[in-house]
């Protein structure tokens, strides 16, 4: 039982890290950036290319991987989303463009690296540590420690820093924020910068724990997205709560029924929340478009 809880916590930390980056982008840019998933995958594979193919030290290749995610994220915003938003494209248009980017880049990753599993771990992970009566590997421990730290810093940044407050202002009412002279484009770019960097960090941690496939970002994104939607999108403490709930539901159901239904259960929870409480646990009321 302890083991189930610990595993749930590991999953939850991973979901949280991906979800917070996604939600940061959603709150400022107001569309579902599905390509966030491929930003993550590219981070993991860049680390692999630098570390294994080019033979650079692990620390350098990790930094390179995170940097690759950041650059890809802001590059997409700059080259594709910003021109679309400049033309007042609807969220559906942006979502479709994002799906297109995702599909094309995932295929590109499979083309370059193959569709099988790759790893940048130097050797086999040693037998797990024994903690509160359950096994925990070093990568899992890293996820549990790093993810809350990253999310806490993001939260503090949004609450305290000038540009963080600007992100929240734009999220609340972007017309009013622009009237006060905040550039919406600049705020969105900052959100993409931090969101994509978080995806890069998540990529390294997840790949360190469970290796990488070209599909890794997709599942990570979906679970992160579900966690932030059930927690209340744009609300970081809510996202943490959502991630824990999702992790628990998946692992407890895996324990009681069978782990093969984990994904179906995650989506069932998502749909229940969308229907019964679309604003999530802690989110404010949802606003439909106003005329």
């Amino acid at each position, binding site marked *: 039982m302890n083991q189930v809880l610990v595993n749930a916590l590991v999953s939850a930390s991973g979901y949280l890290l991906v979800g917070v980056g996604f939600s940061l982008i959603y709150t400022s840019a107001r569309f579902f950036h599905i390509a966030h998933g491929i930003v993550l995958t590219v981070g993991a594979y860049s680390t692999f290319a630098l570390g294994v193919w080019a033979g650079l030290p692990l620390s350098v290749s990790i930094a390179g991987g995170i940097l690759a995610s950041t650059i890809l994220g802001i590059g997409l915003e700059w080259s594709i989303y910003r021109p679309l938003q400049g033309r007042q494209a609807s969220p559906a248009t942006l979502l479709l463009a994002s799906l297109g980017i995702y599909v094309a880049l995932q295929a590109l990753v499979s083309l370059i690296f193959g569709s099988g599993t790759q790893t940048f771990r130097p050797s086999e992970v040693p037998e797990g540590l024994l903690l509160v009566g359950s096994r925990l590997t070093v990568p899992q421990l890293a996820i549990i420690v790093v993810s809350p730290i990253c999310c806490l810093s993001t939260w503090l940044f949004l609450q305290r820093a000038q540009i963080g407050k600007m992100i929240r202002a734009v999220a609340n009412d972007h017309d009013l924020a622009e009237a006060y002279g905040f550039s919406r484009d600049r705020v969105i770019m900052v959100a993409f910068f931090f969101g994509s960097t978080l995806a890069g960090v998540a990529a390294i941690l997840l790949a360190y724990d469970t290796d990488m496939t070209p599909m890794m970002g997709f599942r990570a994104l979906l679970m992160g997205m579900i966690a932030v*939607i059930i927690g209340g999108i744009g609300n970081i403490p809510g996202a943490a709560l959502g991630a824990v709930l999702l992790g628990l539901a998946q692992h407890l159901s895996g324990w009681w029924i069978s782990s093969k239904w984990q994904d179906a259960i995650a989506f*069932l929870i998502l749909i229940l929340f969308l229907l019964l409480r679309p604003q999530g646990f802690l989110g404010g009321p949802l606003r439909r478009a106003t005329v």
Partner: protein
Amino acid sequence: MEYILHILILAGIYTVLAVSLNLLAGHAGLLSIAHAAFYGLGAYTSALLAAYLGVPFLVGVLVGMAVAALVSFAISLPSLRLHDDYFVIATFGFQMILFSIFNNWIDLTRGPLGIPGIPQPMIFGWTIRSHVDFVVLAFIFATFAYIIMGRISSSPFGRILRAIREDEVFAQSLGKNTLWFKVTAFAVSAALAASAGSLYAHYITYIDPTSFTVMESILVISMVIIGGAGSRWGPLIGAVVLVTLPEALRFIGLPSSVAANLRQIIYGILLVVMMMVRPRGLVGKYGFGR
């Protein structure tokens, strides 16, 4: 020669899929990512009926369509309570749940092992064996889908769907029960997608869950949007372009694993370019959500 016929058959199957999704995405403005799930429901229903119970092809097709229409209510009624991107995400969720059922309900679907030995169809004594026969059958299915869609889009029903797309509150103010119209459109679209699934299952004679993933849904959406959502010939053009373009690559001698990835790269890029340059598609009039 066989190969060109194979491509024609695939183009026919995808035309049915794209035309049926066009009713939802193009006419009603509902961007559903669950289309591959209905395609799979049709394929699994008629494959199971034919392979295990020896049910005739046409009966299997009709049962598959009925099953997909019934399941569509379970999907559309909850999803339609949501709007815009939340609607898209809900259909996404249902797509993932149905895929999970195809993949994990081992007792029924044999999971990843798939269902082999689906017999070749026989219609009123005409056994469909050769590729030429299948081209004819695919052509009949696509024509059937086109006739139904033509009827719907020129009928009052189709006009109300377009009115809902343009301004739902206005359509309601005319006393139209817009939910009923959208749910019906969903069911018709699902049933037609299921017919494409049955055709696919009986043509390939083997199905497994990998043919009905969310990527397949995205492919069909791309066909509708690249061709032109809401237009009559857009889905046909989109389906033909996206089926033949990657095959052309295989023709110049690329190995099939490379060609499969290139196909995704091409349609992904096309989707992005279309959104940026021509959101209404090649021949469409309606720009998705402008």
